[in-house]
Every structure is written in C-alpha cells, then in structure tokens.
C-alpha cells in the first residue's frame, strides 16, 4: 500500500513523458496528482487498525508527522497541478514534456522522502527530490534560469553531501556508544541516550546544515531567491511548500533523536539561533526589495526560520510549527501563483516596472495582497494562529528573549514585504507597460482562490481530524525529559 503513492505518480510521469501533445500532457499531470491524492486520502482516512503503516521492513513507514506532511503535500500538488494546464496554455511555445513529467516525479520523490523512516534512505530520497526539481527551475530556458538552476543544484548538492556526512556521524555515534542500531528513527530514538554525545552533536549540526540547505535556512539560503525568482510561480510553490516541508520533516526526525540523547539544550539553542538568524537575514533583504518574486523567496527563508524556532522551543511550539508548515505552504501557494500571474501580465517582476496590479489583474492582485496579509500573521488567516502558538509557547518555556526578537523581526519583515507588495498592487499601471493581453482567467485564478480559502479556513476553523493528527504528530516528535 505504501508503494502506491510513490509509483502511481511515477507511472503517470512516464505516461506524460511519452505523450506527444503539449496540450494533453498537463492534464495527465492533473490526473496523476488526483490519483496520488486519492491514494493518500485512502491511506490517511482508513488507518490500518491504529498502528502506523509500514513496508520494506520498516524502512518505509507512515508515522504521525508523516501523515501530516503527506496529506499536506497531496493537497499542494493537486492544487498546483490544476494550475498547470491554465499556465502552460499560455506558454504554447515551450515544450512541456520534461516539466509535466518532473512535476509528477517530484511528487513521487517527496512522497518517498516522507515515507522513508530510515536515516540513509531518507537521504537518498532527499537528493532525488533535489534532482527531480532542478529541471523544473530551468523551464524558461534562458540565461537567468540556467544560472538559477545551477546554483540550486550545486548548493543543494553540497548541502546534502554534508547531511550525508551528518548521517554517517550519527551511525558512528552508535558505534562509538557501542549499541547496535538499524538506523530506523524509532530505534535511534530508543537508544539515543547511549549514543556518543560529541558525535551526536556534530551529527546534528551537519544534518541541520544539510537539510537546512534544502529548507533554505540562512546562510544556506542563497540559492533560494535565484531559484524562486526565475522558476515559474507554480514551481516556486512546489519548492517553497513541498520540498522545504520534506527537509523540515527530516530535521524534525533528526532533532528528536538528538534531543532524546544528551543534548536537548544544545539542540534547542542551535535551532533557535538558526531560526532567528534566518528571520533576520530574510528581514534585512526584504527591506526595499524591488523584485517581488525574490521577496517571496526571502519570505520563505523567514518562515523556515519560524519553523526552526518552533522546533527549537519544542513542547507546545511543535504543534505550532507543524501547523505553520501547512499554513506557510498554502499561503506560499497563494503568493507564488498570484505573483506569477502578475509577472505574466506585466512581463516584469520588479516594482520599478510593476504597479497598479489591482487595476490590471484585480483578482490576482487582491489574492497577492491577501497572501501578504496572511503570511505576515494577520488574523483571521492561518499563519496567525500558528505564529501566535509558537510565540506563546516560547514565553511559556521561558524563552523571553527569543520570543521578543521573533516579534521584532516579524515587524521588520512586515515593513519590508508590505512596501513591495503595496507598490505592486496599488497605484496606476505605468504608461510604458501597456496591457499584454494577459487577464485573470478561471484556470489561473481558481487554484489560488482555493489556496486562499484554505488559508482562511485554517485561521477560523481547524478540522477535528487535522487537529488530532497535529496533536499526535507533535506528541510523537516531542521528547519528554
């Protein structure tokens, strides 16, 4: 059963790859994503008698955090793929064979990544995810996009190589500690207290840097503005919502092992430091950012920082962090896709050229504005709830300085981001940027509206099943000491 969500998208990818028609292919992607969602729904809605599903001798396993991420990923991929036909229809000159196939492959590798319950296997899946997403960034086939792809690939690969070193350190920590372990996460956590502390610590640092590179924590984030800036909005969403969530899941699993070892304070401090550092870097670069897609990339860096802080604080903040992962991903969907539409309509993504989007593409611009308000933590949208949960948890756990800095940085981010967003949506379109025929269309707007509706929903009402799964996942990741 667990193989299905991996292989079905792969089969669909093959089908897309061998389809001749540029028009039909996107619909195969939609079908693949729908099938994937159906399978995931089946997996989540009908759990096998309460126990986690597992396969391959426990190497593949759908645990509580995995269920959250997997469910979220399937929604993300489904919505993004429904955006694809409308988007690709506007780019008839481009061959979308690789694009459509790779979206499906990415869906498969991210699923694989989520299901991997073995330290090594997870690494392999993560690297596969990197490789699957690289061609997507190169969709535009110009100098800028190739530069972005190159940077994405090289920095990501170097980072992930460090994560491999970290994983090896972790296994060596077991050897040094004199314990036999299978490198399955449960086993590792069980024997964590016996692991050699210095190796465990180094392992944590390396895996954090490694998966942090994929997540986009500063200062490993440098590929992000380039990749997100040059990739189509659709790909930006998948990267900022999907791939980062996978990397986040990896960090969640590793930190649990390290926390269960002797280094809870160490893990907490480093994660909070990284989180705050990422937020600060993002904030600094967002101020007076002219390129609104790069700005979104920095926003992603910021939110990865928030996730890191949430995990660092631990306890009740874990719940907030998991919820925030979902909120951030969905809101990024709103932002990247609407920004993509605005980019299309103006042929530019710089505020020097773009203004008055509310007049040119009213729906996309309004959604962009809503996305901005949501992502900066304004009620009544989802991120508000999760951010407040994290802050409150930080205060509860006595992290007053971190909580305070968190809020200060949120304020700076708001100023930085707001300046750019408002410059884009308000005012009058420039005379020298005449309308190029792109208008809001049902196929390119409807998925964004759904994203926005979900973001609003999560700010007003969290379904009982989601709530209980989140609690379960937070409990599974938390380490009671």
């Amino acid at each position: 059963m667990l193989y299905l969500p991996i292989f079905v998208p792969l089969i669909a990818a093959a089908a897309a790859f061998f389809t001749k028609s540029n028009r039909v292919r996107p619909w195969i992607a939609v079908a693949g994503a729908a099938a994937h969602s159906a399978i995931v729904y089946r997996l989540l809605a009908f759990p096998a008698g309460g126990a986690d599903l597992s396969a391959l001798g426990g190497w593949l396993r759908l645990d509580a955090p995995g269920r959250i991420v997997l469910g979220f990923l399937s929604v993300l991929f489904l919505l993004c793929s429904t955006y694809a036909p409308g988007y690709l229809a506007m780019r008839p000159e481009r061959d979308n064979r690789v694009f459509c196939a790779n979206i499906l492959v990415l869906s498969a590798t991210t699923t694989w990544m989520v299901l991997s319950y073995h330290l090594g296997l997870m690494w392999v899946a993560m690297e596969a995810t990197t490789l699957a997403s690289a061609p997507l960034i190169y969709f535009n086939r110009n100098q800028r996009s190739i530069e972005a792809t190159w940077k994405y690939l090289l920095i990501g690969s170097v980072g992930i190589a460090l994560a491999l070193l970290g994983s090896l350190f972790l296994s060596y920590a077991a050897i040094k500690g004199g314990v036999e372990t299978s490198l399955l996460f449960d086993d590792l956590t069980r024997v964590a207290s016996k692991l050699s502390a210095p190796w465990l610590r180094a392992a944590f640092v390396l895996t954090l840097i490694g998966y942090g590179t994929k997540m986009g924590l500063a200062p490993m984030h440098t590929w992000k503005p380039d990749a997100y800036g040059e990739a189509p909005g659709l790909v930006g969403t998948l990267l900022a919502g999907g791939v980062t969530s996978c990397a986040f899941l990896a960090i969640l699993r590793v930190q649990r092992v390290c926390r269960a070892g002797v280094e809870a304070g160490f893990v907490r401090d480093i994660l909070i430091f990284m989180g705050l550092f990422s937020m600060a870097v993002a904030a600094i670069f967002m101020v007076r950012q002219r390129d609104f897609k790069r700005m979104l990339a920095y926003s992603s860096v910021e939110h990865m920082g928030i996730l890191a802080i949430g995990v660092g604080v631990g306890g009740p903040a874990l719940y907030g962090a998991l919820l925030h992962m979902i909120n951030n991903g969905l809101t990024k969907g709103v932002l990247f896709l609407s920004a993509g539409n605005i980019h299309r309509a103006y042929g530019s993504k710089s505020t020097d050229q773009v203004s008055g989007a509310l007049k040119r593409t009213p729906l996309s611009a309004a959604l962009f504005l809503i996305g901005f308000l949501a992502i900066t933590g304004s009620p009544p949208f989802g991120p508000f709830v999760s951010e407040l949960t994290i802050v409150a948890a930080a205060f509860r756990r006595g992290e007053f300085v971190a909580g305070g800095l968190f809020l200060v940085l949120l304020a700076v981010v708001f100023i930085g981001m707001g300046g750019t967003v408002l410059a884009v949506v308000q005012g009058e379109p420039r005379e020298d940027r005449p309308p190029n025929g792109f208008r809001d269309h049902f196929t390119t707007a409807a998925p964004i509206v759904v994203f926005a509706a979900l973001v609003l929903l999560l700010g007003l009402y969290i379904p009982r099943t989601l709530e209980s799964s989140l609690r379960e996942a937070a409990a599974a990741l938390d380490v009671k000491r």
Partner: protein
Amino acid sequence: MAEWLDPLLILALALNFGALGVSRIRAVVNVVAAQGILLGVLPLFLHGGIGIRGFLLVATTVGLKGFGIPALLLHAMREVEIRHEVNPVIGFMSSLLLGAVGTGLAIVFARTLPLAPEHANTLIVPASLATVWTGFLMLTLRRKAIMQVLGYLLLENGVFIFGLLALEATPFLVEVGVLLDLFTGVFVMGIIIHHISREFSSTSMDRLSELKE
C-alpha cells in the same frame, strides 16, 4: 590487509593536493577519477572481511567513481569545447598552501575526537576531513563550473571515506542509493554545464552572477 589502509589513505591525500595543484581540467578529472578508484577499493582493506555484498559495492563504486562519472565529465568537456585551463580565483600555490594547512589541522583535530579504539590509530578520520576540506576549497576557489563539480566530487569522496567507519552500520541499499544519486547528480550537472556553455559561451562562473541583490 588492514595495514595497507593508512598508506592508501595517504595516497588519497596526495591526490587531493594533485587536484588542487594541476592546471589542466582534464588532469584534475583524472586525479579525481584515480581517487575514486582508490576509495572504491578501500573497503577491501578494512578490519574483518567483507562479504559478497561488499564486493558488489566495491565494484559499483569503482565503476561509477572511477569510470562512469569521469567519462561523463570528459564527455561534457568535449561537447562544449571549453578552454581547458582551471582558471582559479587564487593561485595554485596559495590553494596548495590552504589545502596543506587544512590537512594538517584535520590531522590534529582528529586526534581530539573521541573515536572508537579500533579506529583511533587509523588515518580514516583525518583523511576524510581533509578531503572534505579540499572539496570545499575547490568549490570556493575555482571559477569553472566543471571544477566545481569536481570539488563536489571531492567533498563526496571525503564523506565516503568517513563512511568506511560506519560501513557495517550502513545498509547496502543505502550505499547504492547514495552512489546512484551521486551519478545522477553529476549527470544532471553535466547537462547543465552543457546548457551553460551554450548560453554563455563560457563555463566560467564570473558570467553566472546575473542573479544578485
């Protein structure tokens, strides 16, 4: 056979310096390939025997690191007819000096690490750290895209050396997966280098800094 381990690792270290010191890209590729083959056979010299699984692994490693990947890179070079000089950011002597300092520090640092007794006297950890360091040097001090791929390979080699320590704990499937990923990664990088040279008519990274703040 374990007594051969340290000399071989010293050889690997020497190859690191070779990679930093030679000026033609083709030569660097060959150095890295040689190191790949060397590392590929290292498991044979570990404490205790390795089973059939180990032989398979050795074969795959040698095949990919020693022949597959270098062939890919050389193919990419031929395709794009790039100029064959390394074109470093800082001079070869300085690179070598940095590499030497790093290697020395790695040896000193490795002494302070809490190693299991059976590993305490081998060069595995220092060699691993030094190779990772060399990889980073290549990545940050060389201009050509292909040199960075080679740097990445060196980095990966360093990780691989460390993997020797944890070989028994690492499942075969993972090892193969890692190698496959590496190969695919380099394959994709090769394709991109191809596109870079087509778009920019050079693979020097100086041209690849359009995207910036």
